[in-house]
């Protein structure tokens, strides 16, 4: 087996183990539902009788053995059946799909904006490195990282109200119905979500670039008379992008947490609002499916990023 194939097989195996563990953990969630929650599911207007409780247990499948329950659940998940919402009776998968677009749009815009600014900003900061400005960069980025995005969102709404009274800053319209209205409503949520990660990504880019600029190959390139632009863009930047891309993959998961809160601030009907609403009404199948889908999504994205390195970086391939 070639070394590349072996790395691929090893990583694939790791991925399977993590995904399986994930499904087991998310599945066990439903077993830990407190008893009173099952009673609440019966509804407020129904008298709780042992018969009705038993019927409900049967409906959720709590009367079967743990393994049987897991097998039937995971069997459904693998063919796209995530169960039905406890309250509306609609398939959970459809409810999630209907909300997915909003969250993906918000995440893509924020991550895209942050990356597009962080790369040049980080390079610039690495290039003009001085001890005094170093401290300023550090303090500014730390303030950015600790900035609560939901607070930033509220302040932005207040500022928009004060300075641009006609600007519709909250709510959501689908891109298909009104592309401009959609994007203009996405500006403030994007800014409040992108700013904190922009700070941390610029800092990571800066230190990756500093590392790269200190390498022997950069000195060699300069010594043989390669122009400074070429040194930065062809030699240093390409190498600095490797740790940066890893950081972007990890940030994506962190960003989702931020999106949950920002959706709440700007009244965006995305996955975050869906899951928070589901907790309020104790809609466990919905909570379970959202957590499983979102987390698996990030695991697979990070796996693909990993594989990308193996494909493009010979050092990772051989390590």
């Amino acid at each position, binding site marked *: 087996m070639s070394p590349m194939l072996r790395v691929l097989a090893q990583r694939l195996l790791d991925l399977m183990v993590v995904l399986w563990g994930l499904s087991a953990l998310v599945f066990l969630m439903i077993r830990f539902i407190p008893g009173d929650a099952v009673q609440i599911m019966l509804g407020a207007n129904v008298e709780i009788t042992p018969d009705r409780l038993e019927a409900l247990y049967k409906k959720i499948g709590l009367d079967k053995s743990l393994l049987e329950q897991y097998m039937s659940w995971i069997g459904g998940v693998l063919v796209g059946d995530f169960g039905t919402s406890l309250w509306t009776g609609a398939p959970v998968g459809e409810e999630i799909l209907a909300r997915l677009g909003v969250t993906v749009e918000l995440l893509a815009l924020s991550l895209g904006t942050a990356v597009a600014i962080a790369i040049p900003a980080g390079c610039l900061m690495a290039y003009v490195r001085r001890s005094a400005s170093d401290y300023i960069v550090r303090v500014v980025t730390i303030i950015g990282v600790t900035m*609560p995005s939901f607070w930033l969102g509220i302040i932005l709404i*207040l500022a928009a109200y004060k300075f641009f009274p006609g600007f519709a800053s909250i709510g959501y319209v689908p891109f298909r119905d009104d592309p401009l209205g959609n994007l203009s409503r996405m500006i403030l949520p994007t800014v409040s979500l992108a700013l904190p990660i922009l700070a941390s990504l610029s800092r990571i880019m800066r230190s990756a670039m500093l590392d790269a600029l200190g390498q022997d190959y950069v000195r060699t390139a300069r010594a043989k008379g390669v122009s400074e632009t070429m040194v930065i863009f062809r030699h240093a930047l390409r190498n600095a992008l490797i740790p940066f891309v890893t950081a972007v993959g990890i940030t994506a998961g962190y960003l989702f947490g931020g999106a949950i809160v920002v959706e709440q601030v700007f009244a965006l009907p995305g996955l975050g609002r869906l899951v928070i609403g589901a907790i309020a009404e104790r809609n466990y199948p919905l909570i379970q499916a959202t957590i499983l889908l979102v987390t698996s999504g990030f695991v697979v994205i990070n796996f693909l990023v990993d594989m990308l390195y193996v494909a493009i970086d010979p050092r990772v391939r051989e390590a």
Partner: protein
Amino acid sequence: MLPRHPLVLVGGALVFIQCALAIFAPLIAPYDPIGQNIINRMEAPSLSFLLGADQFGRDNFSRILYGYRASLAVSLVSVTIALIVGGSLGVISAYYRGWTDRVVMRCMDVLFAFPLILLAIAIISLLGPRQWTTAIAIGIVYTPIFARLLRGPALVLAESEFVVSARAIGAGDLRILLRHILPNLASVILVQASLSLSTAILVEASLSFLGIGTQPPTPSLGLMLAESRSYALISPWTSIFAGVAILTSSLGFNLLGDGLRDTLDPRLKGTE
């Protein structure tokens, strides 16, 4: 040389002031943080209400002092849980290697795969939204961070000469772990604990903001922000000051951790 580092100084001062304000909140707070007085509702900052009053006429300054208490208590408990559970798992994995290591670290990988707030939400959805379930949830979420972080240096320490010689003269595993390995991990632990406290404050505020953390009427910074949001256009003071309080609280621990990393471990200087 430790206190000379500017980040340690500024961060340490911020942390110290907040801890003092939180501990002595009952002595400092000019008003009852829960008692409502509708006459003073949405007062702008003045001499009698330093940071203004909220929509129920409660003094913002007093509420922020008690908010610090809730936020620091939850963060401290959660990071302590993560440090003890995660740290032990990481060190034990490194010390025993083999199957223990593989099983423990795969479990940590699974936990680590969850987006942070999403896992906290999952745990809270099972335990019910209360202040102490928030602390437990954040503690579980941070466990893999400490396990992964301490495993690396512990692997090196477990192979080092002084550990090998300690074993040679008959020291037991527990003694080696506690007397020889743990003290050498102190600086890594201190830096990560400080940085984790900084983010734990933000996570607690987020969860309370979402309504699944600290429950009213207990004063909490995230909750203050959520409750005052609907009135922010009429009276922005509560929203502004609650946010500033969250920011400075988290900032203090982050600056401290960042500065400590420089002073305690020169090898890590300038890296993330």
